[in-house]
């Protein structure tokens, strides 16, 4: 009797990809909220909160639901708003719904944890998001996401679905790193004379800490911290788990494994797009990328990641592009 490992339903591959993406997204959203809490502390006032909304191109939806871009509104919009598909609570709910479809494939422990996590986040109230509490709540979400990662690492059967899960996670992680970089440059570019000022360095410092990258950065650069160095670190470092270069390299490894380890013939377009992105990355160094424009480069990478997502889903899962939204 044929059981289990020989085939992977195309639909399961898609669900695994999105489970990986949404859990990573929940974690990153918590990180971004947290880092913005830090930014808002340096007397820039509400402008920072409006900027997150602009950055995510969410202004139209935000304005429909809220009258002012206050701390409370923006934090609610990104943390608890069920009608906002890019909120933390929506990401966790979407992760759970993908996991529900994937339940025959994932471990009971993965499902159970996600189920409980989802119930805990559903119980959060606006009171939990007060400035005094937000950091704690963000830490809770990060830790639960990391627990998920640990349970998954320890229990997920290493068939094809595991690799689709990992591809989803790495695509999202790369995407979120480009957004983190962009938050920073978005804030600073209009007044480029401020780049390198002391305030600026403290913000880069906060950003690095939010991605658990401060000490890693220090191992590469024991002294000093320039925006250029931080950006370079987040883009090119091959040892930092959230760098774009490492994420893309890991996606490449997973796609190759699907081809060689499982004999899948699909994936050529995905690989081509990935190669393009990696070549673009390799063609830059810390000076050229700043000259080119960090915002423009982040934008290019984001578009390339969207294209890779569409290609993976189309080639392996038979999902026609634009047939549903991310």
């Amino acid at each position, binding site marked *: 009797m*044929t059981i289990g490992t020989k085939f992977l339903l195309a639909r399961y591959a898609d669900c695994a990809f999105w489970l990986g993406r949404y859990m990573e997204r929940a974690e990153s959203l918590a990180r971004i909220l947290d880092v913005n809490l830090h930014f808002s502390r340096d007397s820039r006032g509400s402008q920072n909160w409006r900027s997150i909304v602009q950055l995510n191109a969410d202004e139209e939806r935000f304005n429909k639901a809220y009258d002012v871009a206050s701390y409370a509104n923006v934090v609610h919009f990104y943390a608890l708003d069920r009608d906002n598909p890019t909120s933390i609570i929506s990401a966790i709910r979407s992760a759970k719904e993908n996991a529900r479809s994937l339940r025959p494939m994932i471990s009971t422990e993965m499902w159970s944890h996600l189920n409980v996590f989802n119930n805990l986040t559903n119980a959060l109230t606006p009171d939990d998001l007060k400035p005094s509490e937000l950091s704690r709540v963000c830490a809770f979400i990060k830790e639960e996401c990391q627990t998920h990662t640990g349970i998954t690492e320890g229990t997920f059967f290493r068939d094809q679905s595991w690799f689709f899960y990992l591809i989803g996670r790495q695509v999202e992680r790369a995407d979120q790193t480009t957004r983190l970089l962009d938050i920073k440059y978005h804030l600073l570019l209009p007044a480029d004379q401020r780049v390198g000022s002391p305030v600026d360095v403290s913000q880069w410092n906060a950003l690095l800490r939010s991605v658990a990258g401060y000490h890693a950065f220090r191992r590469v650069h024991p002294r000093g911290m320039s925006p250029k160095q931080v950006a370079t670190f987040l883009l090119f470092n091959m040892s930092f788990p959230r760098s774009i270069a490492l994420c893309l390299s890991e996606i490449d490894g997973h796609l190759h494994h699907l081809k060689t380890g*499982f004999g899948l013939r699909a994936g050529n377009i995905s690989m081509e797009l990935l190669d393009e992105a990696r070549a673009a990355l390799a063609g830059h160094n810390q000076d050229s990328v700043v000259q080119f424009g960090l915002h423009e480069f982040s934008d290019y990478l984001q578009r390339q990641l969207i294209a890779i997502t569409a290609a993976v889903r189309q080639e392996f899962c038979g999902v026609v592009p634009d047939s549903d939204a991310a």
Partner: protein
Amino acid sequence: MNDGVDLLTAYDRQGHWCEMLGGDGAPAEHASMVRDRLGGLTLSDLVRRSEVAERELYNLGITFTVYSERDVIDRILPFDVIPRIISPRDWDIIERGSKQRVNAINLFLHDVYHDAHILKDGTVPAELIYGNAYYREQMRGIAVQHGSYVNVCGVDLVRDQFGQFKVLEDNARTPSGVSYVVENRHMMQRTFPDLRAEIGIRPVSDYGQKLLEAVADLAPSEVQDPQVVLLSPGVFNSAYFEHVFLAREMGVPLVEGSDLLVENDRVWMRTTAGMAPVHSIYRRLDDAFLDPEVFNPESMLGVPGLFGAYAKGNVGLANAVGTGCSDDKAVYAYMPRIIRYYLDEDPILDNVDTHICREREGLAYTLSNLENLVVKPVGESGGYGIVIGPRATQEEIDDIRVKLEANPANFISQPMIDLSVCPTLIDGMIEPRHVDLRPFVVTGQSCWVLPGGLTRVALRRGSLIVNSSQGGGSKDTWVLEP
């Protein structure tokens, strides 16, 4: 530990047959060890462990799902921690009786869809079958592997005040609930290891493998290594947890209609490596939704062309198409005659006495005894539309009288059975609550009964209706080793 007060001292079975204490003059010896251990627990301990168990069921997602417009709500089937215990002697009757019944139903279905002897000679009225909403003319003349139409059957049993098991109904389409049988056992193993220590309880954990074997038996005989799948309506189905559970236990893909396609009368599934063949399907989808080309054309859940592949013998389906004409309440009334007809044996498990209102005597008896009878519409399930005479208001009696006179063939009636009770934890007290039992019979080439079954319990005081849609819960069911 418990102040010397036995937990069950205050328990009163209130004159009913009790699964833990027995009935008048018949103590339930087989349950004495569990009864003593239970009696030695404190009520607070029992309550605490019960809460742990319910929370764990919820966290593990052993739930049915209710969808509202914006929320997804998971609910657990209420679980009672006091087990229902069945003696080896009682089990022997249940097991043999259930197999006999499924055997007769399979012979009946084969006959109905081939030469229809039993209808032609009038043993069963032909219009009962041909007028039945679940009769499928398309099945006529189609060969079913091993003549095995009903591969999974749930035989609903009740126990009367004399301790006799009687069949209340057969579920020959897509009976559900077996996941609770297995998960309830796991839950009891975790929360009450002390209650079951040193007691030989027959295992229920190999259900998935037995089901896989039976479904694989239905694949085309030339296929050496059949690919089995479980076909589910999808995550929106309230029994989705059970579909997941069974797919995992069987080690087969859980597919939805859109994952399958039929080409040249062969069934394929869409995988990351392209199309892969499918040889046998455990489907948890009603006949009407299976194939929009043959049945309900509106169905988005099914697979166009599936019935064609099935009719050609290229794919097995469990259960077969068209089994619903055998488990109808009207046909049920004829089941003792059906058993004698094909097997030349007396039924091992009796029906509840049933008056067939389509027959003149049955209708007359029913109309003149409405206050004492339970009247059931034949086409309904889930406990809907039932009128319990002794508990009905005059208005309800008048209403059912009108309905009976207008359309007698739509009804059967039965005496009110005093269902057995089981001690049950209700709001921190142990009280008697009525229970039934659904054993699961799995049939491919051969026939096997899961030694256990779903004990459903009516949690409302005095209620006889155990369906989960009407406030029922479940208990772990222990069949003792002989």
